[in-house]
């Protein structure tokens, strides 16, 4: 390794330079630029999706999602850490990083439905459905809910034929579903009143403020994702870089989101952990670049610096 023979910068000839004036000029430039860009282009503010909007736009999907929470088949129900132990979670190679985090935000998916409904009074259908559910064994509950989810089925998509009632709860065949249809319909009704996210977020605590349960329920459904994909915000649409409408997004996320678009990550069950691991490695390489032979010599091999210091090189040649 060659010794670093960079001379002391204080040994060079100097000339007057006003750092404070430079700072003030730069500050004015940035103020004018940001004030001007803000005035011309503004900033996007698309209203948050409410449970009520979901209920009105896609009631079948909300009912199906509610049934799925009761059956334990939704994304959040089968997530694993930090919400539950119903999955092993993602691994980085042999390392079960997700599991190591532990179940520190325990969420019972059935509770996303039963929690808000248990507090309702004056609706005998819902109250008796809740009572029936609570009196049943876990096995009986799973049997009812799974039967109902299967009966609802799904619409034809991606070359797959439709199953069950094609995703339409109203067309479900007769069967033994226990209180599940009433519970699912009850959640839809509560969503329509606008009270669902409040019931989930405050959960008996006046101040609430933690929207974990509402967001998990929303993300378990299709409506949130459909709205996002329509605006190119999906994971396989370079969505991490994008914003709604024509707003600038986060161009600096280009490399992070790039890996999700290509194999092996695009088809991997552990994509999140693997992409994170790769990006951490690349960040470490960038951070410790000064110590990496070869990489740190690239500026010598491609001498863009000759443009930066051309005045100095010309002067040195003259003397």
């Amino acid at each position, binding site marked *: 390794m060659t010794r670093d023979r960079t001379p002391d910068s204080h040994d060079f000839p100097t000339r007057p330079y006003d750092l404070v004036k430079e700072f003030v000029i730069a500050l004015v430039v940035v103020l004018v630029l940001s004030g001007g860009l803000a005035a011309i282009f*503004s900033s996007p503010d698309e209203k948050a999706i409410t449970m009520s909007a979901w209920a009105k736009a896609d009631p079948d999907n909300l009912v199906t999602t509610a049934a799925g929470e009761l059956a334990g088949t939704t994304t959040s129900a089968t997530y694993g850490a930090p919400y539950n132990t119903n999955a092993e979670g993602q691994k980085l190679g042999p390392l079960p990083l997700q599991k190591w985090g532990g179940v520190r935000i325990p969420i019972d998916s059935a509770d996303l439905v039963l929690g808000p409904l248990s507090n309702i009074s004056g609706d005998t259908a819902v109250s008796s459905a809740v009572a029936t559910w609570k009196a049943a064994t876990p096995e009986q509950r799973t049997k009812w809910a799974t039967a109902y989810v299967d009966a609802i089925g799904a619409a034809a998509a991606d070359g797959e034929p439709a199953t069950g009632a094609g995703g339409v709860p109203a067309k479900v065949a007769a069967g033994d579903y226990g209180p599940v249809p009433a519970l699912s319909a009850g959640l839809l009704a509560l969503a329509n009143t606008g009270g669902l996210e409040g019931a989930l977020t405050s959960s008996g605590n006046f101040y609430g403020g933690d929207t974990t349960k509402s967001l998990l329920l929303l993300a378990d459904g299709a409506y949130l994702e459909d709205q996002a994909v329509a605006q190119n915000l999906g994971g396989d649409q*370079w969505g991490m870089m994008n914003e709604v409408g024509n707003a600038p997004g986060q161009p600096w996320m280009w490399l992070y989101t790039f890996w999700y678009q290509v194999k092996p990550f695009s088809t991997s069950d552990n994509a999140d952990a693997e992409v994170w691991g790769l990006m951490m490695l690349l960040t470490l390489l960038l951070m410790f670049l000064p110590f990496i032979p070869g990489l740190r010599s690239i500026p010598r091999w491609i001498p863009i610096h000759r443009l930066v210091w051309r005045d100095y090189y010309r002067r040195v040649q003259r003397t």
Partner: protein
Amino acid sequence: MSALSIVAAGPGKYVDWGVIQISVANLTIIGVMILLFILALVVPFPSHDEQGQRKGHRR
């Protein structure tokens, strides 16, 4: 909020090129950054270094 608000609701414009898909807004930002970098390298910097120059000295 400005009436000229171009980024208001409305479908965004995107450019597709193979696996790459990028919004016009982001592409513009990246393009401007590359342009600024090139300009910073080639545009002469006013340095009145023939006046007021002093030799360096060891500390």
